[in-house]
């Protein structure tokens, strides 16, 4: 206040000495928290990546927010499907409709992927191990007819549906998965069999996969009917404009 005032510490005056005057600590604490929060929003993803790769994917789980799946269901329940009862139906515009058991899927050529699982709302689980069968191999088993353009997927939960164009479905990083995180897929994660569409946001990776229908045009799935992009490329859809992550 009065920088030129005589040095008067220790002398009883009406105003306390400068060093004893209360400081606005509260404002600094709140602004500090807000600044840290803003920095976390802007740089948090990078921090997570750096720390995650420095510690290895196993220890990344120690970071709150790192390495953790948020479990979503559209029906508020988790279908419990015993392995022996599991069936995957493939029909529609195919030469030979087929119904596959879990053992039959496991007997097919196996594909392993190590890829991030990226949710459209932002959470990301890095380096998830996936195992399964290429979707294109399953399609070849049934024989896709020339008039076919797209696939429609159904879930054992009876409500969730998804879609892919045939071109998308033929990609080598699109699989019918029966193992993830180094173990059979749990019911929470959509087991025993789910879709994993690596280049797209997580909602495309339908859980509890029950049927693949080969159709002549894209039928938008459950999330797409609720406003999400049909072509859900990571980073290039749902408001994103950046380059895809890989």
């Amino acid at each position, binding site marked *: 206040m009065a920088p030129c005032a005589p040095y008067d510490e220790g002398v009883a005056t009406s105003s306390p000495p400068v*060093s*004893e005057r*209360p*400081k*606005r*600590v*509260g*404002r600094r*604490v*709140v602004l*500090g*928290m*807000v600044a*840290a*929060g*803003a920095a*976390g*929003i*802007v*740089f*948090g*993803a*990078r*921090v*997570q990546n750096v720390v995650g790769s420095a510690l290895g994917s196993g220890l990344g789980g120690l*970071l*709150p*927010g*790192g390495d*953790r799946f*948020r*479990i*979503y*269901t559209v029906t*508020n*329940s*988790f279908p419990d499907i015993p392995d022996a009862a599991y069936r995957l139906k493939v029909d529609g515009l195919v030469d030979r409709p087929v119904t596959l058991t879990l053992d039959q899927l496991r007997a097919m050529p196996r594909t392993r992927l190590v890829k991030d699982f*990226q949710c*459209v*709302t*932002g*959470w*990301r689980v890095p380096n998830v191990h996936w195992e399964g069968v290429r979707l294109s191999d399953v399609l070849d088993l049934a024989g896709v007819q020339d008039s076919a353009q797209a696939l429609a997927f159904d879930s054992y939960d009876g409500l969730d549906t998804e879609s892919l164009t045939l071109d998308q479905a033929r990609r080598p990083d699109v699989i019918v998965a029966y193992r993830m995180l180094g173990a059979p897929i749990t019911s*929470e994660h959509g087991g025993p069999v789910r879709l994993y569409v690596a280049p797209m946001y997580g909602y495309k990776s339908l859980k509890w996969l029950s049927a693949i229908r080969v159709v002549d045009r894209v039928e938008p799935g459950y999330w797409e009917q609720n406003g999400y992009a049909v072509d859900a490329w*990571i*980073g290039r859809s*749902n*408001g*994103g*404009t*950046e380059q895809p992550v890989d």
Partner: protein
Amino acid sequence: MQDQSPGPVIGSRRILRFDRVERAAHWANAVLFGILMATALPLYFVQVDRFVGRRVLVENIHTWCGVALPIPLVISLAGPWGERLRRDVRRINLWTAAELRWLWSLGRRAIPEPDKFNPGQKLNALFTAGAIVVMLATGSILKWYRFFPLDWRTGATFVHDVLALGIFIVVFGHIAFALSHRDALRSMVRGWVTESWARRHASGWLKEELPDPTKDPSLPT
């Protein structure tokens, strides 16, 4: 104070610590925090989600209670009714050197004339204020993610999670302190503390509330 005359027992006079507006703001805020924390559990832990079910409902409750979070504080601060609350906010903002010493020594270096709130209580209030802002901002990014780049969404998730953990720790600490300090708790329920409590824990504040100590022989000199 309505009653400045000494009571029948010295030190048993009631002194207003929190008026109705402050108490209403605190409890409305507490109810919202409680609902947000309760609904956070099934959203974070799949075992709880399995047990609770109705995820969409839980999500909606969490979102809208989050949006409502600043309302009680803003309303109670905004009008002429918020005079005492505003004064307490200024109190919480201002820290004396003695209070900082108390904090850095973890309570070992006593404060000669303690204010209405000790530094721990001030820190709790400040943390809560900061947490409301940050949780509201990050939660909004998660809810209305379309408007933000993907990296920000990931960062906002990270911040929301870390701070959620911090909030659980601080809130449970706050409740534990409240339950073990019944006089302080009662002042947040019924508004008043006894004069003897104020003399022991907040003598600096008591001086302000009873402006002329020379006329009150029960006060320490």
